[in-house]
């Protein structure tokens, strides 16, 4: 008998606009020791399935169908009855580790409490067990750290604690709901490894819920793809990635930029948005976005049925796709017509920094503030951006990426070092005219388009603002706004609508149009697609590529998703703790990255290909960023896998300032590590 069986599960939430059918007839089956993945975009109902299994949906949810754990029915039980199952038989790991732990209790106490809910142990025994669990999930010095409070831990450490809580009573089933979405890639790699260890340690079945196809490829045995509250495809992981049958899955896989497909090749952008689930769809819920939709698709919602052995799909044309060579990927409109391949010509330098430093004072006291220390966010960054190229800055949170772009965008003289924008060095205060010219020349696209658009301004007003600030005439403004809408692919009649009327992808288009209003030479893209769903992300990436080749604008891209960075960039600089540790042409960096941190970062970034993902060597970093005192030496030293293996006299050089070394034979590839070979 399977460990977990879900049969015909449906969940409906009441809302002001009528009932929302969040989950519609989902069947799942999970064996002990295996990993089943639920993958889908936001709103597909995957987290609701998890909530229904563990019984933690809000009381207003109407649940039907069966959830069987070892054959025992869980639906319809009272909270009291379910509370004997939760924690003991089912453990759960949540998405946001920053808010998942009670701030007033030490982490040891929280693990301890989780143990004592189900096991009759004395406080002392439970505490010792908690310390053991914390050690298992990789908390160093667990006996001491168990007394710490959650706010003293980083996000990755807190997620380890949440995992320790989830496995405290050796559950048979582990549910991980987007366990690494809020974490950096190297921390994600650590946490996934811990989750894997925990699963092996307990022999539990793992239900892994994620939107990240790379995580699925690396960790799942079986995959269920969810769309509009229903499972639309189910297969073993290798089968699914090699031979996807559902047009939606094919679209998703084509939407992710991959190393093999090459740079700037058009990505599949699934048109439109997922349906609102206020009524049950009458036909296939994907019909409006599907390139292969035919009349019959509108007749009835296709049931999930077996196409080839062990491969279930909910599409009436799956037979043609599987056997008759119907090529869905070719049917999808690729965003870009022909994008000409460009070579990096070193044109004019539009932006450069030399030894840029930015520090923040750490203050204490409420009434009499006094400075107790300095947090150096940017430590001597050299950065060049040439006209028409894309130069990316990658690194994890806290590495100083945002501080760097903000220092440049302020257009004020830096604390230390030099900034030059469009050939104008920023030394003293700029006169109003120069300032306005430079502002027009360097513009910003932010991560959260929703927050960056004033909800009380129409699209017209949003786009008019920068033009008004540049003293354009009314007629010029009007003409330019319609040009901009054409440029980003929005219809003219959206001009008088408000931002709330648009989907996330359309809002980001508006944000991009605003940035382009004054024909800037440089656009700073601060995580431009990280808040978007996969299918929409591809759409925006296509747009960015097209705009660059049309307008020859230079992009200064800041992003943490390496596949996005690789897709867009000509040149990439890797940042760690305020320092650029390696800088190189994009292809060169991704294929021959030299710095140990670059290597770790590249190996931690999941690839949506199960074969690659399971065979490659993975470097998992230990420890945490900046955990040692700054002595002017290599900032990566405390986490560096090379450091401990070096002979003594080499190791001593790690404590001295690192100089950028050029890689032989590759112009522009420089690395700040004395210990790696550069030929």
């Amino acid at each position, binding site marked *: 008998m399977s460990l977990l069986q879900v049969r015909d599960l449906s969940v409906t939430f009441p809302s002001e606009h009528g009932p929302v059918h969040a989950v519609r007839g989902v069947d799942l089956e999970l064996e002990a020791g295996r990993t089943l993945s639920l993958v889908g975009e936001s709103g597909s109902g995957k987290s609701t399935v998890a909530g229904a299994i*563990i019984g*933690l949906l809000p009381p207003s949810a109407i649940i039907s169908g069966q959830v069987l754990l070892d054959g025992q029915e869980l639906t319809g039980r009272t*909270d*009291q009855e379910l*509370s*004997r*199952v*939760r*924690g*003991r038989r*089912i*453990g*759960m790991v*949540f998405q*946001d580790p920053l*808010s*998942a*732990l*009670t*701030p*007033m*209790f*030490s982490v040891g106490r929280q693990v301890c*409490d*989780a143990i004592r*809910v*189900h096991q009759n142990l004395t406080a002392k025994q439970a505490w010792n067990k908690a310390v053991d669990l914390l050690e298992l999930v990789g908390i160093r010095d667990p006996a001491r750290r168990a007394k710490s*409070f959650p*706010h003293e831990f980083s996000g990755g450490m807190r997620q380890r604690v*949440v995992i320790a*809580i*989830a496995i*405290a*009573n050796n559950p048979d089933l582990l549910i991980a709901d987007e366990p690494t979405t809020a974490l950096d890639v190297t921390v994600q790699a650590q946490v996934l490894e811990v989750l894997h260890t925990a699963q092996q340690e307990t022999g539990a079945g793992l239900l892994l819920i994620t939107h990240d196809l790379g995580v699925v490829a690396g960790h799942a045995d079986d995959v269920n793809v969810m769309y509009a509250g229903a499972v639309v495809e189910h297969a073993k992981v290798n089968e699914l990635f090699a031979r996807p049958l559902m047009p939606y899955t094919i679209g998703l896989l084509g939407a992710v930029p991959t190393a093999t497909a090459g740079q700037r090749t058009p990505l599949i952008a699934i048109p439109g948005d997922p349906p609102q689930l206020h009524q049950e769809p009458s036909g296939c819920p994907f019909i409006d976005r599907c390139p292969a939709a035919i009349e019959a698709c509108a007749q009835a919602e296709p049931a999930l049925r077996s196409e080839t052995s062990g491969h279930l799909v909910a599409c009436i044309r799956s037979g043609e796709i599987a056997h008759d060579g119907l090529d869905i990927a070719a049917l999808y409109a690729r965003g870009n017509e022909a994008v000409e391949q460009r070579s990096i010509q070193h044109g004019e330098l539009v932006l450069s920094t030399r030894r840029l430093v930015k520090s923040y004072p750490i203050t204490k006291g409420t009434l009499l503030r006094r400075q107790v220390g300095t947090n150096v966010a940017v430590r001597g960054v050299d950065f060049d951006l040439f006209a028409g190229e894309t130069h990316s800055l990658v690194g994890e949170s806290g590495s100083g990426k945002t501080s760097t772009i903000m220092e440049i965008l302020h257009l004020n003289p830096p604390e230390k070092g030099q900034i030059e924008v469009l050939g104008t060095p920023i030394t003293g205060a700029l006169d109003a005219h120069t300032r306005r010219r430079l502002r027009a020349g360097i513009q910003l696209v932010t991560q959260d388009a929703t927050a960056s658009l004033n909800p009380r301004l129409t699209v017209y007003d949003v786009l008019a603002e920068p033009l008004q600030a540049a003293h354009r005439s009314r007629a010029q403004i009007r003409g330019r706004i319609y040009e901009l809408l054409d440029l980003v692919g929005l219809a003219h009649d959206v001009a008088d609508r408000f931002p709330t009327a648009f989907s996330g992808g359309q809002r980001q288009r508006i944000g991009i149009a605003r940035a382009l209003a004054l024909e800037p030479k440089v656009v700073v893209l601060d995580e431009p697609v990280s808040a978007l769903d996969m299918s929409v992300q591809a759409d925006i990436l296509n747009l960015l590529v097209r705009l660059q080749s049309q307008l020859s604008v230079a992009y200064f891209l800041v992003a943490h998703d390496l596949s996005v960075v690789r897709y867009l960039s000509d040149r990439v600089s890797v940042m760690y703790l305020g320092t650029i540790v390696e800088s190189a042409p994009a292809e060169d960096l991704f294929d021959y990255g030299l710095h140990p941190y670059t290597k770790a970062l590249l190996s931690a970034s999941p690839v949506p290909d199960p074969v690659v993902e399971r065979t490659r060597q993975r470097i998992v970093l230990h420890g945490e960023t900046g955990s040692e005192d700054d002595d002017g030496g290599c900032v990566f030293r405390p986490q560096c896998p090379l450091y401990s293996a070096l002979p003594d006299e080499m190791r001593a050089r790690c404590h001295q300032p690192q100089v950028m070394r050029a890689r032989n034979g590759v112009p522009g590839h420089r690395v700040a590590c004395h210990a790696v070979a550069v030929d």
Partner: protein
Amino acid sequence: MIKLLVRRSTSWLILIVVATNVTYLLANLFLDPRSNYRETRPIPSEKQIDDSLAAYGLDPRVPLIERWWSWLRDIVLHFDWGRSPNGGSVNAEMAYRTLVSAQLVLIATVLCVIVGVGLGVVSAIHQYGVIDRVLQAVSILLYNVPTVVMALLLVFGAIRINESVGHTLFLVAGSQSPQVSGLLPTIVDRLAHLLLPTVSLTLLGYVGYHLTQRSLLLDTINADFVRTARATGLPYGKAIRRHALRAALIPTATSVAFSIPGVFTGAIITESIFGWHGMGEYFSLTLAKNDVNGVVAVAAFGALMTAIGAILADIATAFLDPRVRLA
């Protein structure tokens, strides 16, 4: 923790001393004890008045600085807070009234907090449910009832019941009966007297705690950490009590602690309707009677209660949120 408390207590002590002395100076500037004597018949001469005031250290002919010095010396050396313009001892009056008020106010405050927080939790758990709506409606109604109306309604109701049963079931006036002796009968008698004013104060005082605790708890009841606690196997109610309520109690603890000075001196209407001679009444009497020393003693008492409340708030916060101890 001990060090923190000692430091806090010291700074509060300084604050009390300053506040009391400033009150002394202000009271002497604005209150005129001589006017009490002008109402007596036959009207005494100014000299007679001043002579009799001189016995109580209130003689306006003596420079203020000298009066202040002897007042301060008496307090520091003998803990003697002086005399009223008719010669009554402030110490005796304060001691009696503090006890009377304490009985009335402390029990009512404790009940207010228990009832208010309890109903707040019930309300929050059943947000927008029938129970929540009924409890809120009752609370909002009570919130709008003036103290006088509530107290008088209780008195009338009690009298009606007494009449209909034919003997005195509820005692509606005074804090004790004159001819009761023995320990047990005294306690029973005190409690019987306490019943109605306590009910009155509780009914009007719990409402604030109910409504604020409800919204405070609603802020934390859906927090991710409550969900984590439930996922470990804690039933809903227990997860809320252990995790959500604890976070939501911190602001309540602070507000309870700081309400102590207010309830001691603020129960004037309740005291006068039920015939209790507590601090509230004393506060208004001393002001009306130009009793400089009495007013200052009441102010000092208020400052002391504030300090005690603040320190209790510190302790309660540290107890509820262990992170505070680290600071």
